[in-house]
């Protein structure tokens, strides 16, 4: 076989070799501060497109004010496509090739945990914006990882407060069958049983994520004849569950308490079939008119010509927090940055937020209210802001949950 084969073989491998020969960029002093952002953009676009838009907006705002430490912010985005192993690879690429100063992002809990472990291993700061898993700051918590969003525990605790006020004693639960759904149900049961020992759970359904067989699930829940329901499904599962539940009358004369359903990402797709009177956590972007939020909303609309979603708030807060921490540390040195993040306070679009030194969880809260139909689509009404600080366990409990000395 003469050299033709050699050439073709080499051509086939060229793409592979090109990857190996990627250039290394040096870090110029006084150049931009670089953030490596890894998220599941192609697998979770509904949440993450508004997220990325707001990230870019927030970065532009910071840079318009002259940047941080006299240097502009710059972000390198990577798409992990929902695979933790790819996220780990990109983390390596961002740290060694792109020379980023810190890591951020993560949507899925397992991606967040994988990145947190990389952060620990490499002694680099990782600001987890979205992943909800409690393990991220508790059982698997480490010195280099901070989390912005209210965790599964916190959101469950917010809803338990409302659920305890209901007369219902017979409860049924439905949750997607993965860590988030299981944890939400576990905390909800545990916390509710503490304040309402008279409550019993009569049925539970755990459909696979994104694969709910809504008709059968609704029927199975109805058969147990509960007085109230706790729902953790979201996205496509929620849509199908609500539609089947509406036609089959599952929600009639029953209270429903539901995680995340008030977020526009999940409420808007339901259009005029959005359920009424559910007690939910979420984000009432239209009615929230505090000066900070109104300014954010207007800026977002001007920049992207669409209303913000909760993902937008999460991204905006993350960038704001990173900028605040950089300013507080006065350096990009990660050890000092970690110290700056511990106990960092800043003013976000929902109000003041603190990154707790004890477990690296921020006190960003969520809105708790009821759903209602207004003008042919679902909205949140009677809402209040639940400050995250009020929905975390007492410090001595947190110390038992998180390995100490980290």
């Amino acid at each position, binding site marked *: 076989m003469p050299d033709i084969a050699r050439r073709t073989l080499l051509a086939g491998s060229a*793409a592979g070799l090109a990857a190996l020969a990627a250039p290394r960029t040096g870090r110029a002093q006084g150049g931009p501060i670089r953030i490596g952002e890894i998220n599941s953009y*192609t697998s979770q676009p509904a949440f993450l497109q508004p997220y990325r838009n707001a990230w870019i907006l927030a970065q532009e705002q910071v840079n318009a004010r002259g940047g941080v430490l006299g240097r502009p912010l710059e972000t390198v985005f*990577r798409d992990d496509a929902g695979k933790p192993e790819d996220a780990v690879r990109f983390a390596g690429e961002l740290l060694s090739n792109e020379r980023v100063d810190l890591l951020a992002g993560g949507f899925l809990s397992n991606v967040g945990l994988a990145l947190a472990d990389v952060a620990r291993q490499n002694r680099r700061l990782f600001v987890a914006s979205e992943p909800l898993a409690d393990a991220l700051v508790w059982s698997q918590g480490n010195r280099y990882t901070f989390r912005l969003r209210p965790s599964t525990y916190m959101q469950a605790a917010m809803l338990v407060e409302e659920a305890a006020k209901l007369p219902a004693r017979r409860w049924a639960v439905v949750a997607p069958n993965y860590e988030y759904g299981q944890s939400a149900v576990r905390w909800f049961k545990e916390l509710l049983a503490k304040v309402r020992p008279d409550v019993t759970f009569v049925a539970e359904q755990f459909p696979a994520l994104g694969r709910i067989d809504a008709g059968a699930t609704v029927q199975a829940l109805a058969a147990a004849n509960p007085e109230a329901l706790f729902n953790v499904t979201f996205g*496509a599962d929620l849509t199908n569950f609500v539609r089947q539940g509406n036609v089959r009358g599952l929600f009639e004369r029953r209270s429903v308490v539901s995680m995340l359903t008030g977020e526009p990402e999940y409420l808007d797709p339901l259009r005029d079939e959005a359920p009424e009177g559910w007690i939910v956590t979420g984000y009432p972007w239209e009615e929230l008119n505090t000066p900070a939020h109104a300014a954010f909303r207007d800026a977002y609309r001007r920049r992207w010509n669409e209303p913000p979603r909760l993902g937008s708030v999460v991204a905006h807060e993350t960038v704001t927090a990173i900028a605040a921490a950089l300013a507080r540390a006065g350096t990009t040195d990660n050890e000092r940055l970690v110290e700056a993040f511990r106990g960092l306070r800043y003013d976000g679009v929902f109000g003041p937020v603190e990154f707790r030194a004890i477990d690296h969880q921020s006190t960003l809260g969520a809105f708790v209210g009821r759903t209602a139909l207004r003008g042919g689509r679902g909205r949140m009404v009677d809402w209040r802001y639940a400050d995250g600080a009020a929905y975390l366990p007492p410090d001595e409990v947190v110390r038992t949950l998180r390995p100490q000395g980290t």
Partner: protein
Amino acid sequence: MEFLVLQALSGLASASSLFLVAAGLSLIFGVTRIVNFAHGSLYMLGAYLAWTFVEHGPGGALGFWGGIAAAVAATALIGAVIEILLLRRIYRAPELFQLLATFGVVLIVQDLALAIWGPQDLLGPRAPGLRGPITILGQRFPLYEAFLILVGPAVLALLWLLLNRTRWGTLVRAATQDREMVGALGVDHRRLFTGVFVLGSALAGLAGALQLPREGLSLHMDLAVVTEAFVVVVVGGLGSVGGAFLAAVLIGQLHAFGILVFPKITLVLVFLVMAVVLVLRPHGLLGRPQAEARAPSGAGEPVLRPATRPVRILGTVALLCAIALPPFLGDYGRVVMIDMAILVLFAASLHFMMGPGGMASFGHAAPFGIGAYGSALALKLAGAPMEVGLAAAPFAAGLAGVAFGWFCVRLSGVYLAMLTLAFAQIAWSVAFQWVEVTGGDNGLLGVWPSDWARDRLVYLYLTLALCLGGTLLLRRAIFSPFGMALRAGRDSPLRAEAIGIPVGAVRWAAFVIAAVMAGLAGGLFAYAKGSVFPTYLSISKSVDGLVMVLLGGVRTISGPIVGAVAFTGLEEQLTRVTDLWRLVLGLAIVGLVLAFPAGLAGAAAALAERRR
């Protein structure tokens, strides 16, 4: 009692939906032998197109049903375009190669759908006239679900009439049994294939469009449905539309009642059903033993020959480059090279089964992931260091190979491949569900190498040594007497048995060897990433392996190596360069498929052959 009746009805409604998708897939496979991975994409397109037509249509009953009809027609048209522009050109390629082409289509459609319809889930209107519930035994049941229960059997009846009472249907059935013979009798099988593909696409479009009043539309619809549809087709028996209906009803009912007893069963139910059915009935419920798709004369499996001198030199040069290169690479370059080396071994082990063994696997992620979990669990449960963990990986995967292989090697063709998929999914669901041991979907963290191998360069050399060693060993095995026996069993089981080769035992051994090597790759992967997740066992990992082998060329020995390096390199580059990486990667795959129907290495070999 009333409740059980209603649960059964809910199960029937789901069964109807499932049947509609599966019917088209079964027809297409029966005649063209294409494993149409893009069937889910056509289903998704049907749903989204229906949404668009109904939303922007005249409204009312006419607007709704007209929109559904328009969506079905549009999906059929898209199917025609795919068949004529792409699939028609590669029918002569090796078995399963078309899967690669349809995989490219899946990637393209995913990005196009995102660009056209946006990232938000969409909710269509309810069907006019079928909005409300009816009352059955004092319980409410949605009218539309009742309508769906009727649609399934109606479509089945129409298909039966079409297949049994028309000339076209007779030809289709004839082609299902022996397409060469049909061609020899003067039937233009190109038109027949196009017709069947269009019909199958229309059915997928109909299935998608009819979900509009029932479910929200999301960009995950395609992959969520396509595996289940395949399961239904295989459980029913390939090419048997009636079997598909039976299987859909079986799965729908088992699911409706299964969740009452095991609320978490959805994760794995269809795969459990498939495993049981295939073990008991190797050709599905109503399937018949598959007539061999006779290869065009003189184009059977080519004989694998030891490398010629130039190829040997080339291989040695490549090997020396791989060994000499790492010190000059940056840290990330080393990371990528570790990944590539691991995937080369992964692809080579799959190729060992698929090529010389003639046993395609849709579940090769199973030994890979089990190897990774073997390493991680050795660490977590026994505190074993990396050296032990790396031995535990192939051991665990080999054990799984012994168990899975015992069932799998009795089957052949797509049935065998689907049984491996069933086992892989069962393994995946165990990793996913057994939270106390495996950590569930949050995985196991902190699986880092021993101190001496912690430096990336050292770990890279360790990986290279084991992966290249494993790959060379597999290559050696292909030309050993064992490999000869394996190939003999593939090419002619009867004659092989007649000269005293225990074909079944040889295939089983090959299955286990492939599992051991994939397990080693998985163990190395675990320590390279520092963590283990159920995604290592997922369908997409299995598909990646298939894509690498097919892209490189299943009929050559260097194919998996070239394919693994090309695919990972391409993906790695594209994901960093563009947000539309799925579109570009899909187009690249489709382009490569059209340009090199024998795979990259196959094309090189053919070129050299012609030069000689």
